[in-house]
């Protein structure tokens, strides 16, 4: 039985914390031994960094990587997602890492395969490993999550990064505020209890963490904002607006950043930016997630004689379907 990682919404606080502990252990040099488990990456959207991060994580942990080039596969011939993932499972895949432009695609895949499905970003829904690496990065810098004020700025409505971060930070006791132009905020809070505002000043006031979201180029064409210049003027994260935040604020960005649009160069490359650390943590988080997904299988935990955590875990992720 495989464990799927489809959303952070599905995970209890204890499970998230335990995954962060595992990822921190990896960061501290305790590389999991995946013993030749087969990790397949199936990306229906181009995403160099997430795909590289998963493949690097799999290789460093001794897994075999099965890479699917969607552009040159039977997907192009009209094969359905369900048929494609069943084929991957039949090829001996243990963990299927799926990136897809449609929200809920990993949930659909998980209903039709026996292997573990890890969501590497689905539409506008969630990007749980990104959420975990955001949490890990903040925990490393701040030493805690609970009690922090986290401002997520930008194109919230279209952002899977925002949703996973909002679930993760709220589950662990941070207070989350989502800010952006009214046309880029959802009509209702995507996570119960999070605050939403069109005021950048309100969102940044007293913030411990600022997560600037990528502004996709098509937003202007879609009419969601008049111009990207105006967006920058109203919602760009810059040194002057960050004065409202706590002096030791940590700035995150999921990348790739449009430097000069949603974030200025001074901030992106400045002392408060943790953007490069996020990338590094991404590999640790994904190694921990691969091991977690495979946990019910016999996977040795480094050289330790016994796993540090029961394979069943306290809160197994709900297996959909």
């Amino acid at each position, binding site marked *: 039985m495989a464990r799927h990682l489809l959303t952070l919404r599905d995970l209890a606080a204890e499970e998230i914390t335990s995954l962060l502990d595992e990822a921190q252990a990896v960061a501290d040099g305790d590389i999991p031994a995946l013993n030749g488990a087969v990790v397949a990456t199936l990306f229906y959207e181009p995403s160099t960094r997430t795909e590289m991060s998963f493949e690097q994580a799999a290789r460093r942990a001794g897994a075999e990587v099965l890479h699917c080039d969607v552009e040159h596969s039977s997907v192009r011939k009209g094969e359905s997602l*369900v048929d494609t993932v069943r084929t991957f499972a039949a090829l001996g895949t243990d963990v299927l890492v799926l990136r897809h432009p449609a*929200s*809920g695609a990993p949930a*659909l895949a998980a209903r039709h395969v026996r292997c573990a499905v890890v969501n590497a970003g689905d539409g506008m829904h969630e990007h749980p490993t990104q959420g975990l690496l955001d949490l890990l990065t903040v925990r490393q810098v701040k030493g805690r999550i609970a009690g922090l004020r986290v401002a997520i700025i930008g194109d919230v409505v279209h952002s899977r990064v925002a*949703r996973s971060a909002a679930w993760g930070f709220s589950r662990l006791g941070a207070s989350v505020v989502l800010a952006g132009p009214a046309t880029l905020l959802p*009509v*209702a809070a*995507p996570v119960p209890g999070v605050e939403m505002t069109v005021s950048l000043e309100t969102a940044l006031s007293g913030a411990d963490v600022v997560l600037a979201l990528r502004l996709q180029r098509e937003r202007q064409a879609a009419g969601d904002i008049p111009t990207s210049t105006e967006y920058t003027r109203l919602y760009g994260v810059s040194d002057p607006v960050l004065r409202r935040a706590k002096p030791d604020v940590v700035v995150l960005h999921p990348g790739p950043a449009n430097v000069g649009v949603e974030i200025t160069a001074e901030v992106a490359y400045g002392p408060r930016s943790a953007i490069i650390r996020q990338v590094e943590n991404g590999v640790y988080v994904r190694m921990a997630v691969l091991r977690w997904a495979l946990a019910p299988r016999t996977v040795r935990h480094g050289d330790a004689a016994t796993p540090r955590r029961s394979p069943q875990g306290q809160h197994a992720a709900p297996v*959909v379907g």
Partner: protein
Amino acid sequence: MAADLLIRCGRVVDPSQAIDSVADVLIIDGRIAAVGRDLPAADRPVVDAAGLIVAPGLVDMHVHLRDPGETHKEDLASGTAAAVRGGFTAVACMPNTVPPIDHPTVAEYVRGRAAAAAHCRVSPIGAITKGRQGRELAPIGTLAGAGVVALSDDGVAVLDAGVLRRALSYASMFDLPVIEHCEDPALAAGGVVHEGEYSSTRGLRGIPSSAETTIVARDLLLAEETGARLHIAHVSTAGAVRLIRDARARGIRVTAEVTPHHLVLRDADVGEFDTDRKMNPPLRGADDRAALREALADGTLDVVATDHAPHAAEEKMMEFDHAPFGVVGLETALGILLTHLVEPGALSLMEVIRRMSTTPAAILGLPGGSLAPGSPGDVVLIDPERRWTVRRAELVSRSKNTPFDGWTLQGRAVLTAVGGEVRHNDLAVETRVP
């Protein structure tokens, strides 16, 4: 469809005559001959209906039978087999077939196939515009001559207000109601669920209520100006209900329908991206659902229609964004209404029969909807005590895309007769000839 049948000692519920009492119903030569006590069997087939409800056969004014063109989903035989199993004796089928019913040839095909293969009465609805493209009027007068009972571009609204205005005027020459699917695609903007908390959480594109209400408002104004008959299909929002209620109060000739699924489900019930709960209009919020129930009870919404929309399993087994809109409903509608509206006291049995039989028959001028002598011998026997569980695999519709799989319902059609001929019989006792 011209048989004899004596139905004995049932609880006869007929809204057209305000009858709710135990009686016999006698059908001779396909027509209701009498309703009363101790009617003579002579040598006719007899059904003992003690403990059962005897009502005019149900009439569904909004179904998609997919015939011609998409018979892998449904056809006139399979769709009407589902209909009689659900207690329906007459259905009106929407014209978004392939090709669409925008030409008398296609209407004649549907009527011909129905005469040869259908299990219940089938009346085609014609397209408002050629190719359902919303630009030029279909040959409405010729379609009327070919037997269409209403006009609709269902699946889409007629977006050009000038075209719709002319359609309303022209249709009124033939006394055909125009049925509008009220949705502004600019506001729906590729949405797949109701815009609200659920869409926000799941990162699914939302269809705002205004996509429906703005078109309803426009259409009501056009109906007022033309004096034509307008029928609003599958009302889903509290806002549309308010507009229709106000229009009705001002004397505008408008009727409206609601589906069983919009009466009992809401957007959050889509759950983990369940494509069998993806339909258009989408399941709305809890407030909308409450408004729909209230409007059905107070008569603002006249009719319950299923919007039976079959899709093959492989078509629904897709990413939520890519799966087609629509759910089947013919086999579950009555059970859903009895279990979730009548049982809790939200609607009387008499009103359910009215909204599912008498009123839709009257709006479209269809046979049925009454047990008055001379009416067609179209009858449904309902066992109000029958508890049953909806099982996808047991549906007789060619498609199994029900949103109610696994639901246990109380009350079911146990016998359906069309013109006195028994077309569905789930009674423990066979019809007998004494």
